[in-house]
Every structure is written in C-alpha cells, then in structure tokens.
C-alpha cells in the first residue's frame, strides 16, 4: 500500500494530491528560508491566522452576489486580502508604536483569528447551504483536491519560485546585513515587503492542503532543517526546498496509503522527522557531531595532561588518562612509562616551556594568542623561531651536584 502510494500508483486523485503537495512543500521551504534567515520566522504565524476572516468574508460576499460560496479562487483572493491587512497592522504596530515584533505578531494573529471565528459562526447561523468545506481551511482537507485546485496550487507555486529566483540576491543581502544592503542602495523595506508578499502567496496557496495553522510548520521547519547542513545561504535555500518537497511528498503518500490519516498533520510530522534527523546527525552543527567533538577534545586534554604528568614524575590517578596512555603504548600496564612515552612526555614538557617563553615575549604576541594548552607549537611557529626559543631555554644540562 505505502509502496504503491510512493510510486504514485494510487489512482488519479492521490497522484494529484502528491504532486500538488510536493510543489507546495518546495516553494514553502524555499520561501520560509528567507523568513528564517531574517529572524522573522513567526511572522508566518500571524499571516496564516490573518487569512481566516478573509475566507469567511469572501464566502459571504460570493453568496450575497448569488454565486457559489466555495469558489476556490474567490476564497483565496479573500484570504490574500485579509492577510495583507494583517501584515499592514503588524508593520504599523512594530514601526509606529513601542510594541516589539513578537507582541505585534500575537496581537494580529489572535484578533484576526477571533474575528474570523465570528464570521464563521455568522455563516453557520445564516444557514446558506453548502458551507461545508469552509472549516477545512482551519485544518486542511487535501482529500478533496480537484484538478482545478491542483492547477491553482501548481500555478501559485511556480510563480513564487520564479519570483524568488529573481529576488534571491537582494533578499539574501537584506537577511544577513540590512545596513550594508541599504548602503548598496537596496530599499530594505521594499524587499521585506516583497518577502512578506511571497510568504503570503505560499500561505494562501497552502491553505487548501495543510490548513492555516499547519502551513506555519511548512514555512519554518524545512528552513531550520536545512540550516543544520550548511553555512552557505544559497545551499540552505536549495536544501530547504528539498526538505519541504520531500516531507510533503512522503506525507501525502503515507496519508493516501491508509484511511484516517489526515494529510496536513502527516506532512508536518514528516518534516519534523527530517528536522530531528538533522538535529542529531548533521555534521558540525548536529548533536552527534558535537558529542564526538567533545569526546575528541576530552581525549586530547587527558593525553596532554597525562604526558606532562609523566614528564614531571607525578602519579596519575585519572582512569581515562591511564587508559588512553596505555592504549597508545605510552604507558605499561604497571604504570611505568615506555621508551616512547618518556620521549613524548619530554617533548610535551619542553613544548610547555617553549610556550611559556612565547607567551611572555611581546614579539610573539600573535602566536601567543593561539595558546590553548593543546596546540602543537610547530603548527604556530617556524623552525627558525623554535630553535631561537630553544637557544634561550638552553639545551639539556646535567643535574648540578
């Protein structure tokens, strides 16, 4: 069943849903990245909640004009208008008042959502038939996706992708360094506005698939996931698109494979799965990599301290240090240093003296800044500099009688 779904063998409707969801996943992942890099991830929360009154009002207007209240294009236009109004309120509150952006986000999302609920209850009590499906905007209802809906989604997704391709450079610049971007003559507020417009477009298009609450997840999670894997902004954008598309595709396939598996939540859980994997396994920024790095560092410290202790004839009690020294053949089982161990210990102690001299000497200031108790002195100074230092320390001498 699942395999069939993954290979798009589940029939026309399931295939349509899978392709539509994948397109949405890609464009939301890519759009969300810029939002994330600009540190405004939660703005998407406000935008998505602000679409609700628009959906309800559009329904009422369409019914009042004698049309079918569920016309998707009409509902999407309504949601876009009210999202724009929400965005304008958000901007006004952050710029013209003392409210911080997070408070403005919360205010906009709760008030617009509350007003949307009021409209929805009005629609319910009006008793105009066929309002069913409107509630689907809250939680998404992909199962009933039609060819027309899929076309709207594909068209919207393609348009957002094209716009992002065009705006990629200025948006990246604004995300990382708004002041520099402004100095280059880029209008930061205009770019921000376009970015919000893109987020709005993705939100409006995504309403039908995952619903207005879970679209936030598709805008945030893939971007955060991608950020784990690379430090390069264009790669983050690309990977976020891949993560978003993959989780949407897998989610749509899984939800088609069994009844009672709503598409939106499954897609979100899939993208969280990718996020969790990245959090654990990513190189450099991942938890596993950090643990390994810590263990490696711990071993280096213990080895170094062990060698210094050997050189100064101090007794070593630390079990980890003993184990590390023995495993490298520097220490015999009875706790006596081997030939190589003594040589390495003497070298470590001499390096310590060399470092002490380097750190007390003004001329080596740059090199001294690199001292961390572990770094080999050869990696910092040239051979000539080291022999100069050795000359000042002096060669091996006999113990005075």
């Amino acid at each position, binding site marked *: 069943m699942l395999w069939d779904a993954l290979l798009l063998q589940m029939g026309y409707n399931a295939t349509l849903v899978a392709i539509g969801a994948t397109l949405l996943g890609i464009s939301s992942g890519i759009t969300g990245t810029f939002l994330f890099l600009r540190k405004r991830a939660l703005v998407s929360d406000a935008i998505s909640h602000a679409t609700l009154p628009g959906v309800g009002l559009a329904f009422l207007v369409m019914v009042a004009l004698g049309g079918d209240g569920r016309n998707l294009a009409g509902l999407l236009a309504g949601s876009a208008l009210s999202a724009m109004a929400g965005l304008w309120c958000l901007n006004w509150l952050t710029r013209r008042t003392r409210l911080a952006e997070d*408070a403005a986000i919360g205010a906009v*999302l709760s008030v617009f959502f509350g*007003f949307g609920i009021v409209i929805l*209850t009005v629609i319910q009590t009006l008793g105009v038939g066929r309002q069913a499906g409107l509630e689907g905007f809250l939680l998404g209802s992909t199962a009933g996706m039609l060819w027309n809906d899929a076309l709207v989604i594909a068209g919207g997704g393609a348009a957002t992708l094209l716009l992002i391709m065009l705006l990629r450079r200025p948006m990246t610049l604004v995300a990382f360094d708004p002041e520099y971007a402004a100095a280059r003559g880029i209008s930061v507020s205009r770019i921000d506005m376009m970015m919000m417009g893109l987020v709005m477009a993705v939100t409006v298009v995504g309403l039908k698939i995952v619903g207005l609450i879970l679209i936030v997840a598709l805008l945030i999670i893939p971007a*955060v996931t991608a950020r784990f894997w690379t430090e390069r902004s264009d790669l983050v954008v690309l990977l976020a698109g891949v993560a978003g598309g993959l989780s949407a595709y897998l989610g749509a396939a899984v939800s088609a494979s069994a009844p009672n598996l709503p598409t939106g939540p*499954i897609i*979100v859980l899939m993208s*969280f799965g990718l996020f969790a994997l990245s959090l654990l396994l990513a190189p450099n920024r991942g938890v596993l990599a*950090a643990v390994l790095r810590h263990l490696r560092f711990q071993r280096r410290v213990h080895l170094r301290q062990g060698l210094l202790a050997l050189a100064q004839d101090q007794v070593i009690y630390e079990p980890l240090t003993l184990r590390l020294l023995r495993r490298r053949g520097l220490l015999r089982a009875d706790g006596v240093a081997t030939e190589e161990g003594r040589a390495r210990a003497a070298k470590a102690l001499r390096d310590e003296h060399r470092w002490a001299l380097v750190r007390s000497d003004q001329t080596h200031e740059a090199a001294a800044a690199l001292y961390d108790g572990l770094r080999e002195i050869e990696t910092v100074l040239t051979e000539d500099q080291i022999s100069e230092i050795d000359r000042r320390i002096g060669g091996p001498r006999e113990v005075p009688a």
Partner: protein
Amino acid sequence: MSGAEFVPLSLTPLLIGIFAAVACALPGNFLLLRRQALIGDAISHVVLPGIVVAFLLTGVIAAGPMMLGAAGAAIAAVVLIELIRRLGRIEPGAAMGVVFTTMFAGGVLLLEQTDTSTVHLDVEHALYGNLESLIWLDATGWGSLLDPAALRYLPAELPRMALTLIGVTLFIALFWRSLKISTFDEGFARTLGIRTNLLGLGLVITAAIAAVAAFDAVGSIIVIAMFICPPAAARMMSNRLEGQLGWSVAFAVVSAILGYVLAGYGPLWLGATDAVSAAGMIATVSGLLLAIAARFGPCRHRAGAPAGI
C-alpha cells in the same frame, strides 16, 4: 433585563469570561515585557495533544485528567523548545515554531485516528470554546446566589477559573519585587541574588496554568488574545508597571463584558436571530481596544524616539 433571565443565562458565562481574561492578562504583562509574548500562542496550540492523550488514557471527558494532560503538554513543549534552542543553536522564535506546529499536528492526527468525534471533543470546540453553554439553569434570580441547592449546580468552570485567578494574583503579588526587577534588568536582579532562571520558569508555568484553565472553559482564542492584547494596549497607556497592570486588567474586563454582550445581543439588534461566537467577539473587542490605544494612547511611542516617525 430581569434577574430571572440574567442570572441563569448570562451571569456565569460573563463571570467566567472575565476571570479567564484577567487571569491571562496578568502574567501576559510580564511575558510582553520579557519578549515572550508568543508563549501564550505556543501553549494554547500544544495543549491539544495533551488533552487528546489524557482522553485516550482515561477514556473519560473529565476536567481533572484533561487539565493534567494539557499542563503536561505545556511543560513538555517549554522544555522541548529550550532543548532544541540550545542543542541546535536556533533562534527562539524558530525553535518555538518547530515545536508548537509539530505538537499541534500530532494532536490533530491523534484526534482523527481515535475517532473521538462521537464524544464531545473536537478541534473546533478546542479552538472556539463554548462560553455560551456554561449556563446555570438552576438559578431563578439574584436570590439563587444565596441558595445552596441552586449553587450546587453552578458550572464547575466558574469556581475553577476563580481559583486560577486567585493563584495567578498570589504568584504575582508574592514575587512582585523580584519579577519587576528581573523583567527590566536581569543582570541586576542576579547580582541581588534573585534566581532569575527559576523565576522565569515559574512565570511560564503560571502562564501555562492560567492558559490551560481558561482553555478548558473558553477555548484557545481568548487565551491567546488575552495574553497579548490587554497588556499591549496597557503598555500604550502607562510607563509604570503598576499602571500597566491596572490598565491591562481594565482592558481585559471591558473586552470580556463588551465582547460577550456584542456576541449575544449584537446580532439581535441587527435583526438576525442567532448569536455569534462569544470567544471570537471577545478577541475582536480586545483588538479594537488595542487599536484605539495604539493610535491615541499617551505612551505609545518608544522612549526617546521622535514623535511622528
């Protein structure tokens, strides 16, 4: 309107609405000043899986297990957000977004999987609340307030919400000085020996308890709106924390009363027959109050910023 009509039908929902609004607005003031305003939003989304899990475990719709489940989910979410923020070195907003959307998705999935739609537990109820249904049918008039037989059938949400409000007020009153100092100058608070981390956690837990209690009674919209809108509007009215708290309570009470009345009687005045969602209307009114305060409030600009920019 006579007491015979008002007391059974409107008194209890109105009181519950007021208590819920004030209980959320009070901690909301501190969350707002600490740039944690969206904690209320996150909490109200994550309680859904908590409630569903509590229902699955106990099999009954009872307030006790539901509130425990919701509180557990709220605490789990706070811990998870902190964990992801530290382990992944992600900015707090994004970490919060990851956690609350995922937990909400998990809650919706569980809900659909277990087919709880037959019992009175569905997403819409959780979102909108059902303030209108918390009526006190045994009351016959103002006299019922002194009648023990009628008082026994008072909706359980009323005393629970009142208790929550008392608890929240006590927390803020007890830790007033420490809360105030650590909100405005955390470093200074730490030099005074105030355990700011613990205090911050206590504040979030207090907020979570208020949110869960209110969520159970009135739905999540009021919770999110009351955490943010009255304190935000109050922020435009005063530069002093005491003043801000007072204003926020006033705004919360006005939103609850006006919203409830508009939802119940507004449509009737306009010629319609049915009421609209009280929770949604309360949120809408609080937003209008915020808009008025943001436009005309005496302290609406950032300190030091030139006016009119």
